[in-house]
């Protein structure tokens, strides 16, 4: 048997990406953590129903508050922490990564496939309750004329949020080989706390996601005044979208590069 000239059968980048994506979507959707997260994501709806049973409530105002303070700040990072972070780490900890690394495949495509599947599941977990919450709030009182514009902006913002947080958490997983602690440190220390500090907030996903959804307060807060800002600095919507898309791209390039070259000792 000639061994030196044997033709090599390999899978194209696109087919590989699709195969990995479909495989992990199928498994991710049925996983226990996805079901638990789906239940957690029902909480804002339940809260909305309870709050809006009272008289004189501002349904869309309540919806915007829920999106800004609960969903964008806590629930989106939480969902992504448990979806994007483990995308790679679960394979390492479960030691199934050996099977993938034994195939003649592009490791960056494996990384990207896993990231996209995590982002899609996260988006579904976040957007569906968001839409239900919107219609609960919409039905609660007299909605403003721009109610559906608010819905559109928040949907797009949360969708971008799901991709950007997943990209960061998946990359942290590829770098460290464990994701939960790294993700929590990044989110709590690097994103949430920084988003409360004037100027520094421009470097956070939280700020840009709120800005993209037109949820940033245009009046300066006490901390803004403390640093001498008489009025809040206005960052255009496209600026925030640009920053978030750039973050996703940078995170994915770094994550793919690390995943391609890293030796996972298992």
């Amino acid at each position: 048997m000639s061994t030196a000239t044997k033709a090599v059968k390999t899978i194209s980048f696109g087919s590989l990406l699709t195969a990995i994506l479909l495989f992990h979507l199928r498994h991710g959707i049925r996983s226990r953590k996805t079901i638990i997260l789906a239940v957690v994501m029902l909480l804002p709806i339940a809260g909305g129903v309870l709050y809006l049973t009272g008289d004189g409530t501002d349904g869309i105002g309540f919806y915007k508050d829920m999106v800004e303070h609960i969903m964008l700040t806590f629930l989106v990072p939480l969902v992504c922490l448990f979806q994007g972070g483990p995308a790679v780490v679960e394979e390492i900890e479960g030691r199934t990564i050996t099977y993938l690394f034994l195939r003649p495949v592009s490791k960056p495509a494996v990384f990207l496939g896993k990231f996209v599947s995590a982002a899609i599941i996260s988006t579904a977990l976040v957007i569906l309750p968001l839409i239900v919450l919107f219609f609960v709030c919409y039905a609660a009182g007299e909605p403003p004329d721009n109610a559906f514009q608010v819905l559109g902006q928040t949907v797009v913002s949360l969708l971008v949020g799901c991709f950007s947080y997943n990209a960061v958490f998946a990359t942290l997983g590829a770098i460290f080989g464990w994701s939960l602690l790294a993700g929590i440190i990044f989110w709590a220390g690097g994103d949430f706390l920084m988003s409360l500090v004037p100027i520094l907030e421009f470097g956070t996903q939280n700020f840009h996601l709120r800005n993209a959804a037109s949820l940033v307060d245009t009046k300066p807060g006490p901390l803004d005044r403390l640093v001498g800002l008489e009025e809040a600095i206005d960052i255009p919507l496209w600026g925030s979208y640009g920053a978030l898309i750039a973050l996703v791209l940078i995170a994915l390039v770094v994550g793919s590069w690390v995943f391609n070259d890293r030796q996972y000792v298992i």
Partner: protein
Amino acid sequence: MAAPPIETRNLSRWYGQVIGVNDITLEITTGVTGLLGPNGAGKSTLMKVLTGQLKASNGHARIFGEKIWNNPYVLSRIGLCPEQDAFYEDMSAFQFVTYLTRLHGFTTHEAEKIAGRTLDIVDLAERKHDPIRTYSKGMRQRTKLAQAIAHDPDILFLDEPLTGTDPIGRRRVIDLILEFGERGKSVIVSSHVLHEVESMTTNILLINKGRVIADGDVFKIREMIDGHPHLIFIDADKPREFAKLLAGHKDIMSIQFDEDGIRVATKNPAACYKRIPRLALENNIVVNRLTSPDNNLAAVFRYLTEAGHKQSATSPKNPGPASSSSSDWSVTLRLGG
């Protein structure tokens, strides 16, 4: 001249301060090769480097003359049955093998056909659609084997493939390995149990403490091992009576009593293993347990290492650490460090 299927030159791999494999130079051709060594000897590390799971810290390894790390050409031509019992537990063996075969560039339809055929070969056809989490240890082992051979690799690495298999499964796996070897492929089987490897090949590579200490014909190594006192532990209901019966035979070098039973040192383990059940039956003695502390090979390796050093000391032709040989032995002892 075509490059050998597997070749390493001064290959070393460290985990921080810990040595995985150290300065290994070897060539492996077609057929079945047994990679023998006690637990922690470096067998799995060597396999991981040869299958592109790890990079060499020093030296190099080549498959068909090509570098291994991130090389699709190499990865398309090798298969590995890893030691770890890791799976996507909710998947069936059929889904598992189909998915991994698909990643070799086959269409989904082709991959399904190949997976079905391969699972037939490893005798998993009846349970192939059940979740892997419901499988026995032996079935899981055969599932791992199926994913390793489904794409018909030219080189097959099997890391402790017989662990947990029942006698029938064990026979099936051994037959498959032999069949692969007869088809002109290279099969590297790691084990810490000598007789397991002996059932598959006569060509072995002994590894200990990260170094290849001997390679060649298993019969010669077996002779060396058999010359070395072999320990057998017997837990019987009448230990003193049994010890008395055994003591009358010439090959018995010593008998020691301990709390659980007796420890017998023999120069001829094959004869002694035959004799023990016969004597027990003839004298109505119940043997509860019969084991050998030497079966883990650690003692054998100590012995081989010592023998090698003696050989090294008496042979002026010994060229040193990389490899040394003697015309008296068809095995090559590799000494050093």
